[in-house]
């Protein structure tokens, strides 16, 4: 269970059932993909708890984590639309009641 200088971290993504999204499950440390597959199978699949696994070398992952919204572009979100007052006015004009 000692690691070697050439060991690589593989991130493991797990799909619980067919059709479900793959979710990050953890990582394994292995000298190559073949061993990573064996370790991942034992760690995340031996109780039939996964329908599929993705193994990705950690250094192949490019993470983005800053999503600035300098201009507060509300029209892209539901909270950018406040229809209450206008709906009320439209109903009054039409002489209808809320359904």
């Amino acid at each position, binding site marked *: *269970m*000692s*690691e070697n200088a050439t060991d690589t971290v593989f991130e493991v993504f797990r799909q619980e059932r067919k059709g479900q999204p793959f979710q990050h499950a*953890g990582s*394994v440390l292995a*000298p*190559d993909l073949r*061993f990573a597959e064996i370790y991942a199978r*034992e*760690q995340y699949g031996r109780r039939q708890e996964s329908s599929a696994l993705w193994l990705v070398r950690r250094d192949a992952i490019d993470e983005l984590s800053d999503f600035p919204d300098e201009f507060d572009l509300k029209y892209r979100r539901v909270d950018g639309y406040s229809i209450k007052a206008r709906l009320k006015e439209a109903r009054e004009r039409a002489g209808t009641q809320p359904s």
Partner: protein
Amino acid sequence: MEAEQVESRAAEFLEYLEAGGLVEAHDWMPDEYRARLRKFVEMHANSELMGVLPERDWILRAPTLQRKLALTAKIQDEVGHAQLLYRVVADLGKPRSACLDDLLAGRSKFHNVFHYPTRTWGDVGVIAWLVDAAAIVSQKALLKCSYAPYARIMKKICWEESFHILHGRDVVLALVTGTPAQFELVQEALDRWWGPLLQFHGTPIPASEDPMVRWRIKSQGNEAARQEFLDGYVPQILELGLELHDPKLRRNDEGVWEYTEPDWEELKAVVSGHGPASQERLDFRRRSRAEIEWIGRTVLAEAA
């Protein structure tokens, strides 16, 4: 960073934690947080790794093939937990080989309950049922740990521990419904394990003074964990006709469990490597690490 800046950043970090914030591996964290977290997860990993040895002794002596297979599966689970936890520690800056070096040199610790011998098959049942039950109380609280990679791994660990408790309870039930001699095996094992079990969650340091709780590494104080264990398991033990030989053990009118003060000196001595089986277990690990060293080399040569 200037010392002053670090301090204000640490205060911000603490505020963030208090508001329920979660931390990822690459986030900035105060040195104290990283050090405490790493030491805690490392001890957890060591405990999973060392914790299989008392059970390993019984693989060949298990009474049936079914029990042999179940015990082997449980041991595989625990070693798997150690692997996952050492990954968490490695991402906090300490590689697995360094953790193993420290463990084998006696520089790091593992849980008190894994420093005792397993004398009979009754021990196997009591360990799998009650030691795992005590552990799962702590582990469930760790699902809310502020360090998210640890909390995520705990989900899988807790899921597997739930099988172990059932396996242990099944072993105990088979014995208490067997012959009087089999019943006595459980009672005798329980008598020996009760002390270590009550020590398991640690001294009753108030949660408000516990830095581990302040950093939200733990979400539960030691005494709260012990109370939860007693609340859940004393009734389950007594309903089988087993006895707990602590004259002070009772649930008082406020619903709080009272018990004879555990031997905290024993706990301290045991976890620092002076338990009845500490050195024998460490020797076993030292031997096996040396014996399997060639496998690593062979694998590496082939993979290169």
